[in-house]
């Protein structure tokens, strides 16, 4: 079976989407640059948060694609292309990482040689936490991700015109390998960019913590895109609330998974009460940071849990749209909570700065822009995929 009579007419996404992306991005970039001049440390931290957020969306999306291939899932096939559009950000990370690498001094204590010289613990970590190895790791990892992105999406696109089932077979093998490499690289990424902001602290579950937030964010992005596109009629009618239910259920599951990982990390450190571990959490309880910590539980767990608990809620497009946006914000909030309390000057509590709002704007614009650009060039659904027909017919 090559072409399926799915009546897919490629509709162009409206121009204003494109425009919105560019405007938001430009505003974000300009304000960001100003921010760098005004308060380089604050700006660097916010850039870091935006960067890791983009990794979550992009690499998380690629992970979802790989998961679909590896498990042989059917229901997600119709909007796998949408997910691929999000993953398109990955090669651009090679460029986006550069400003961060130039600002490592503002971000990481362990880059300051005088600090390391006086600290035995940091000296012990120096074989791993040194600038050159760090930079190499960053580029190598993004490079590996980009390779997998390239091959996976190339096969998927080729299949649009050829319908060749062997391409699916190839992608399944690539996906299996990618998942293994993803697990390792996402852990290393989280250790490097997020955990080493506090170089004295360590937690073996941290990679999984970042992973759980990543999957939630990627799912939220895909859900939001799918619901919006379906509402505006860009996706085939056959994508029904049954498909949405699956997305909603997955979001629900991973919200719970995030809560489980976050709680495990907290409970183990709280229980043993070792100062070398608890200080990290205590820092997030200083002054107004305590409110952030409580809010994190509410925003990332309690509200989405209750909102997605019932079956009708998981299928309702309005509810899903709202929760998807909510969860994207929640992941940003999570990343913010992870690093900001360590910023020099903010140890006593949160201090407001307009710079905090600039980078999210740029991020949103960036994602919309990339999505719109890819949607211009390619089909919105993988028309050549052999599983497409079964995917569109999917019912609970």
């Amino acid at each position, binding site marked *: *079976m090559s072409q399926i009579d799915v009546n897919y007419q490629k509709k162009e996404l409206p121009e204003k989407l494109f425009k919105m992306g560019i405007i938001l991005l430009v505003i974000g970039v300009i304000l960001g640059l100003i921010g760098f001049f005004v308060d380089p440390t604050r700006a660097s931290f916010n850039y870091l948060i935006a960067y890791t957020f983009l990794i979550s969306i992009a690499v998380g999306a690629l992970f979802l694609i790989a998961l679909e291939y590896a*498990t042989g899932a*059917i229901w997600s096939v119709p909007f796998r292309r949408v997910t691929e559009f999000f993953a398109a950000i990955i090669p651009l990370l090679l460029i986006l990482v550069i400003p961060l690498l130039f600002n490592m001094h503002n971000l990481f204590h362990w880059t300051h040689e005088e600090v390391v010289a006086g600290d*035995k*613990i940091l000296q*012990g*970590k120096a074989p*791993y936490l040194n600038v050159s190895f760090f930079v190499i790791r960053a580029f190598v990892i993004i490079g590996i991700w980009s390779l997998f992105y390239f091959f996976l999406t190339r096969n998927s696109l080729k299949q649009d015109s050829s319908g060749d*089932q062997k391409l*699916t*077979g190839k992608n399944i093998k690539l996906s*299996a390998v990618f*998942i*293994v490499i993803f*697990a*390792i690289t996402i*852990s290393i990424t989280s*250790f490097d960019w997020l955990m080493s902001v506090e170089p004295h602290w*360590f*937690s*073996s*579950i*941290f*990679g*999984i913590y970042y992973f759980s937030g990543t999957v939630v964010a990627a799912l939220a992005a895909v859900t939001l895109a799918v619901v919006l596109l379906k509402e505006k009629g860009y996706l085939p009618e056959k994508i029904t609330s049954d498909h949405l239910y699956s997305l909603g*259920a997955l979001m629900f599951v991973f919200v*719970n998974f995030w809560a*489980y*990982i976050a709680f*495990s*990390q907290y*409970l*183990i*450190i709280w*229980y*043993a009460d*070792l100062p*070398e571990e608890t200080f990290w959490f205590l820092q997030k309880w200083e002054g107004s940071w305590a409110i952030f910590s409580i809010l994190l539980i509410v925003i990332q767990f309690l509200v989405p849990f209750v909102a997605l608990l019932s079956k009708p809620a998981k299928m309702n497009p309005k509810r899903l749209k709202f929760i998807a946006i909510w969860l994207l914000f929640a992941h940003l909030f999570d990343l913010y909570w992870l690093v900001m309390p360590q910023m020099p000057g903010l140890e006593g509590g949160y201090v407001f700065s307009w710079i905090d709002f600039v980078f999210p704007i740029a991020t949103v614009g960036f994602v919309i822009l990339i999505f719109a650009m890819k949607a211009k060039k390619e089909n919105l659904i993988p028309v050549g*995929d*052999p*599983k497409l*027909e*079964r995917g569109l*017919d*999917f*019912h*609970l």
Partner: protein
Amino acid sequence: MNVDYSVEEPVVHGRLSLAEIEDLVVKPLDSKPNKKFYIALSISGSLLLIGAVLVLFTFYYGIGLWGNNQPVGWAFGIVNFVFWIGIGHAGTLISAILFLLRQKWRTGIARFAEAMTIFAVMCAGIFPIIHTGRPWLAGYLMPYPNQHGLWVNFSSPLVWDVFAVSTYFTVSLVFWYTGLIPDFATLRDRTTSKIKKTIYSLFSLGWRHSHRHWLHYEKAYTLLAGFATPLVLSVHTIVSFDFAVSLLPGWHSTIFPPYFVAGAIFSGFAMVATVLILVRKIFDLQQIITLDHLEKMNKVILVTSMMVGLAYGTELFMAWYSGVTVEKFAFFNRAFGPYAWAYWVMVVCNVLFPQLFWIRKIRRSIPIMMVIVILVNVGMWFERFVIIVTSLHRDFLPSSWGMFVPTLYDIGILAGSFGLFFTLVILFTKALPVISISEIKAVSDGAQPSHHRGENHE
């Protein structure tokens, strides 16, 4: 190999009719046990008996008969407990999680796996009870109002274990029984023996396959599956808390909860695979428990093996990265100390051998599969042994270091737990249908109405 991804693979091979499926599944219940059955039962029964006798000795003479000492106060008892609980998790995962993920291939193996869960939890539950030394006083551990005004310590992970394992056992039993009700009804309606009819009628509660009932039944089943899934994660997480909330190097590591859960699924699937390979051969169920299903299970084993390997790697890295001397030593000691042999058995069996499952031919080869999954079980037992004994035998003060040597009683009681498990499994195969009759009928070819385009959904 050419796979057509546009059609769904059939769950049941050979285009069996509903009646043929039922006959296949019910045959062991209607036939008298043969010689092979008795041989198998006597082997497992002997192991069970040996274990029981050694347990009675332990009650009479005390825990001194075991190898426990200071500093290794926890040894085989807790290793066996964690081992068996881990094995139990595969059953719930296959039953509940694969159900929620709408993986139809679970149907042929779910009933069996659930039964194995219940038996494994029974084996596991023995150990916390006997390792107290005076288990007949175990009732005092429950929270009851007393003159001392004492309550149990709800902050202790050991008490969390009590809640977790009891809940897990109860929910698994309820889930299993709920699934059995329609099957009891089917058995009741086809049996000719009066005694069996009475028993089946009793247990089927009068189920009459009414669709008004199926409506609630399916909802209840989904709810149970939805609860059993986080339950399974929580039980082994709580077991991991036994170790992780302590201060001991090698134990106090935040990755323990997901690491233990992955390991539990890993060892559980290996045990399920072991038993299933034997069962499908003995009872001619190859068309219902197909090679495809076994291949899928092997993929799960491969994935969880890599998760466990990733956890090993992360722990090693974090031990170095943390800079904590005792932590670094704990891992160095594991790999190169006096128990290094156990550590390398663990790594080879858990991480290396399952990598062979990348190769499709091996995934579909019954003899090699059998060897690998047995090695996985061995490796996972050693993983618990390594974690517990190496961290205990050399912790903070070198003057407190010691060695642990298991006694005959330790080993014999472990063998006895295997005996109990396999005895229950063997008896189960003759007493109850090993495959859920109603579920397997529901996923066979042509079983569902076609206006939903047939078979491509739950």
